[in-house]
């Protein structure tokens, strides 16, 4: 899962013009930048922020779906959801490792998450209220994540691009699984269909917000585009997502909760597309800044896991030291 990783990213950099030009030439030639290569400080900082936020999103993202593991309605679904949430943890792990190549430790990043200094995708500050949310999250949230992440497979920073290739494969599996959950509900009882529509009604707009503010409002995007950290604008990706998703909703028999949505033949350079109604950006900023219903609970849950686990991590360190000392003594 990924979203507004670039909000607040600070691409300012102070290297001399010749250095920046040489770096830009490598980027323009589509060369991958590797951890030990010289790079502008702004490039490094932007990536640390983005990869860190992406990793945090995976970790915090385990919580809303984890909320239904113990109540999954069949053993097959229980196993699949558990495996999915575990995959998210795995994505977090590769991403922290990719960020570590830029000189920040996982511990440091975790502390920034717990202190509220580092952000994560605001979508996870919404609650999961029914089983249908698990299907809708897979279909829409993972779907939006894929739209965002496929271009990241070509990101100029090698470790991030490579991590994304693996992550995207798993995400697309999750998306199909989510879609299949929703499809099963839509073939089910009236109560199941209502559950699916209710979940779509609640997740549709937050899913569109995952692509971040409109291009006109998106600070620092230009530098990230030039450095090929970012390849497409927020609005372009959002449009792509809507155009892919609306026909799927129609196929499922679900109604997208946007009364203003119309087919507009002029969109997408005349190829046509779905024009969406106004997005409530006040809600977006409120949730990003901590005012969503679950923001405090999510961080509290992460902090509790971290603090309750402190003695375990300490024991592991102490034991490793004892073992090493005994080995030395025996030699």
């Amino acid at each position, binding site marked *: 899962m990924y979203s507004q990783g670039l909000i607040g990213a600070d691409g300012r950099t102070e290297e001399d013009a010749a250095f920046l030009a040489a770096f830009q030439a490598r980027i323009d030639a589509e060369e991958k930048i590797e951890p030990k290569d010289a790079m502008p400080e702004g490039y490094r900082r932007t990536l640390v922020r983005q990869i860190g936020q992406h990793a945090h999103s995976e970790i915090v993202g385990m919580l809303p779906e984890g909320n239904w593991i113990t*109540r999954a*309605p069949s*053993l097959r679904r229980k196993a699949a959801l558990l495996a999915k949430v575990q995959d998210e943890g795995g994505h977090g792990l590769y991403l922290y490792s990719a960020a570590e190549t830029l000189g920040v430790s996982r511990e440091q990043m975790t502390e920034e998450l717990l202190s509220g200094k580092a952000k994560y995708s605001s979508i996870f500050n919404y609650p999961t209220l029914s089983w249908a949310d698990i299907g809708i999250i897979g279909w829409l949230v993972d779907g939006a994540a894929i739209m965002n992440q496929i271009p990241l497979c070509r990101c100029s920073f090698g470790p991030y691009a490579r991590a994304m290739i693996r992550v995207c494969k798993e995400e697309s599996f999750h998306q199909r699984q989510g879609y299949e959950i929703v499809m099963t509900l839509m073939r089910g009882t009236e109560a199941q269909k209502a559950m699916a529509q209710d979940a779509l009604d609640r997740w549709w707009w937050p899913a569109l917000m995952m692509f971040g503010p409109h291009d006109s409002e998106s600070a620092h995007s230009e530098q990230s585009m030039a450095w090929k950290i970012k390849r497409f604008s927020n609005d372009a990706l959002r449009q792509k997502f809507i155009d892919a998703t609306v026909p799927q909703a129609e196929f499922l028999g679900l109604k997208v909760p946007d009364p203003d949505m119309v087919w507009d033949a002029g969109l997408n350079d005349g190829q046509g597309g779905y024009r969406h109604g106004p997005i409530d950006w006040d809600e977006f900023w409120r949730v990003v800044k901590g005012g969503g219903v679950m923001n405090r609970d999510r961080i509290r849950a992460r902090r509790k896991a971290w603090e309750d686990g402190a003695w375990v991590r300490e*024991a592991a360190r*102490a034991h490793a030291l004892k073992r090493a000392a005994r080995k030395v003594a025996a030699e």
Partner: protein
Amino acid sequence: MSEAFVTALLELADDHLVLGHRLSEWCGHAPMLEEDLALPNMALDLIGAARGLYARAGEIEGKGRDEDDLAYLRGERAYLNCLLVERENGDFAQTMLRQLYFAAFMEPYWRAAASSDDPVLRGIAAKAVKEVAYHIRHAGEWVVRMGDGTGESARRMAEAVEELHRFTDELFFSSPAAEAAEAAGLLPVRAETRGAWEATIRTVFAEARLGWPAQVWAQQGGRAGAHGEALGHLLAEMQSLHRAHPGAAW
């Protein structure tokens, strides 16, 4: 015979589902990211084994009950798991010790099940024996780290032994149904795994610097559906959605 075999398979399946469910409660809340991956891994192994066992029980029973009917539509008194697996997670020391106790029992059990007269059970055992060997290693390493880590971790580990050891005797107890299935060559004899179990646990405890617990009152009753209070809550949560929509497909 087949009725006894079904009951004995349900005992085994319930052990696996309940313990898998308990482990799944950790997902997203573990002490470190590596354990957020490892605990669901073990949970998936256990739930996978449970599914195979329920399916086999339903098939032999012949009343058309599938894995979900057996998992979601039996209440607390009908669940036949041993008491150890239903114990609440407690801290990480208790979770890992519970896992070690159970895995150290299942490893020789599954090994012996390779010569069961039931071909489906042999298949389940062949897969599970490899998984459970990993569970012993993983949980055993943690018991050692915590037992021989810091003062606090050693204290918690010793408390976990005090808390859980009283539930281990039940692992070796065969209900009348299990005895019948054992006598028919369908299932391994539970009591015969005790030596291997004790050898594993003693090796780990020695390395973890944990003392062997003094004689305790052994607790049992799970095989007769006489549980502690925690299981009812686990089942209430697990079964709530399924039971709220009778007959729905998911």
